[in-house]
């Protein structure tokens, strides 16, 4: 066990609040969990040295930080600053049927329910999920009432100042037939370390539009997850945009807990320098008639490293499942690294399941075509890289977010050195 984990456990043992049963359970599991090494499959390509060496500390003094503005987006702002829920930044008037509460402010019955939900969505195999269970600072619970269609997105921002450590946790419940858009965003200054987990319960016929932006770069260490439980006829459409940092790791779990659920996940990550980004996406088809479509695209430049593990597990009863996983990667340098591993486990016999993973260099024919029109080779390369990712941006349902992220990605490509 690492020193870092030992001290984390010691710190967690001192906390006594409404989450105590959850914390105790996590500590028990952590005590029996081996610190991941290169031999641990889930962490094979992502060394934890940056965590072992982190000097980040929980900062309890109040720090003023504001989330970046997104033009054209009018969102309900839910802001964590260094792990603390900033009530002053919470949008004052919430739409009818929407509630956003600090877990400690809930009544006992609500807390019991929230605790129960916590134990049903995020799988217990994520070691930093357990760390987050044990060390969670402020926990926020969001609910949307039955049949309520919320047009204003909720934006969950986790802001970290220089050298800060934070552990944030949000639970979002969409009651039957409701509709909601959630944007998760981490904005971290240097030498920070955070775990950020959000769990979504999407009840029958409810529909979730989800975004996760992991654009923090540099010396930040960020480990988190978005976990979804889909019930009968539930729908989700998720978009992930990631840049790398010293260590960025994200786990996505989609559980088809009901029939006829429909999940789409479009993920794109663009790495430069010595950055690392690791996405583990797991889909559990536990029930019949579910549908999943995953598109994961990655571009690596310089000496960066990308990891993708895409697991689709179709249980024995999950007949008539349709699942598709497509992973395409572009290498811009021969020192960059892509580790991709699609994993299909299929125990039902009447399913359609397809997967593909490709690693390629830039399309030479397209490059030549652009050059014959007078576009310089370097500019053409940037255009093609952008196009590769832009195909997925075009699929983002929220136009304001698409317009916001496009120039950010374009700028990143312009800076990437092609070797």
């Amino acid at each position, binding site marked *: 066990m690492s020193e870092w984990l030992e001290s984390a456990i010691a710190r967690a043992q001192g906390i006594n609040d409404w989450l105590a049963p959850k914390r105790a359970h996590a500590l028990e599991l952590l005590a029996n969990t081996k610190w991941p090494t290169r031999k641990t499959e889930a962490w094979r390509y992502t060394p934890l040295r940056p965590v072992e060496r982190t000097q980040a500390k929980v900062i309890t003094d109040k720090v003023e930080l504001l989330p970046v503005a997104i033009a054209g987006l009018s969102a309900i702002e839910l802001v964590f600053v260094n792990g603390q829920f900033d009530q002053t930044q919470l949008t004052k008037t919430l739409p009818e049927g929407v509630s956003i509460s600090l877990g400690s402010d809930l009544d006992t019955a609500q807390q019991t329910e929230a605790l129960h939900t916590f134990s049903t969505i995020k799988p217990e195999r994520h070691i930093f999920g357990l760390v987050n269970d044990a060390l969670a600072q402020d926990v926020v619970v969001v609910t949307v009432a039955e049949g309520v269609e919320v047009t204003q997105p909720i934006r969950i921002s986790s802001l970290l100042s220089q050298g800060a450590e934070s552990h944030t946790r949000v639970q979002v419940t969409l009651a039957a037939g409701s509709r909601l858009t959630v944007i998760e965003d981490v904005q971290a200054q240097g030498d920070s370390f955070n775990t950020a987990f959000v769990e979504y319960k999407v009840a029958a016929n409810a529909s979730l539009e989800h975004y996760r932006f992991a654009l923090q770069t540099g010396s930040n260490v960020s480990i988190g997850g978005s976990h979804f439980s889909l019930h009968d006829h539930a729908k989700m459409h998720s978009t992930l945009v990631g840049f790398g940092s010293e260590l960025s790791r994200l786990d996505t779990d989609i559980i088809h807990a009901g029939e006829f659920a429909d999940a789409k996940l479009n993920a794109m990550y663009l790495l430069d320098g010595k950055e690392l980004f690791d996405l583990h996406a797991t889909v559990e088809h536990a029930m019949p008639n579910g549908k999943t479509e995953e598109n994961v695209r990655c571009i690596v430049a310089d000496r960066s490293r990308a990891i993708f593990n895409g697991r689709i597990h179709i249980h024995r009863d999950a007949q008539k499942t349709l699942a598709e996983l497509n992973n395409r990667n572009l290498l811009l340098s021969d020192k960059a690294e892509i580790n991709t591993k699609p994993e299909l486990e299929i125990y039902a016999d009447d399913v359609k399941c397809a997967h593909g993973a490709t690693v390629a260099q830039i399309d030479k024919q397209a490059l030549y*075509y*652009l*050059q*014959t*029109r007078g576009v310089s080779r370097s*500019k*053409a390369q940037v255009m093609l890289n952008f196009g590769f990712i832009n*195909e997925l941006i075009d699929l983002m349902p929220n136009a304001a977010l698409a317009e916001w992220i496009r120039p950010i990605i374009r700028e990143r490509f312009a800076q990437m050195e092609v070797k």
Partner: protein
Amino acid sequence: MSNTKSLLTIKDLYASVEEKQIIKGLDLDIKPGEVHAIMGPNGAGKSTLGYVLSGRDGYSVDSGSVTLDGEDLLEMETEDRARAGLFLAFQYPVEIPGVSNLEFLKASVDAQRQARGEDAITSADFLKEAKAACKQVNLPVAFLKRGVNEGFSGGEKKRNELMQMLLLKPKLCILDETDSGLDIDALQIVAEGVNSQRSADRSFIVVTHYQRLLDYIKPDFVHVLSDGKIVKSGDASLALELEAQGYAWLQKEPVEDELEG
């Protein structure tokens, strides 16, 4: 006309693709405003010529010279050849999903204006020009928003090439089998577009297998390309002769030569 300076001069050009020589001693001289048709059987090197002139990777010049407006074309990068006024309309235009046609067109025009030392065109002005060009080649304006050639039919791709030509206003256009895969209506639209661009300072090389296109685009000269060199040149009537005779005579002649020798 003979006093006018040449726009393109190819002298004794030899070029190879992957070590296989395809162009074998080609000479061609084109003056501003002329339309030259290059005809010939499959495998004669027709498409190779366009690729060599545009500087495609993998197409290497073994010997000979090519000048455009007096400048050594072979010394230039592909993009600089385009900026110098060379335009190649592809037989099979490339699909580029994710890059919008409008972005692609604007980047091309911007690069060429910049190379000429002109100010960048504003997005609003460019959109106006692009819409007008769409109309001229009979492509719906919605095609500007789509990925470059993405999911376009054969005819739409050819019209998109033509639209690029309208916007880039090149000095020398090489149309590489622009007629292939087009029905008669699409062919007429493309031909009208080309004809509208004919002017005293713009020249064309029309590469084609069939005479049909030349009913609509009247060439000043017709050349027959065979085994990497021009074996016969004439005026527009040569195309009609070829139509009547086919290309079989090309294969026969060398054999007879051998017998005589």
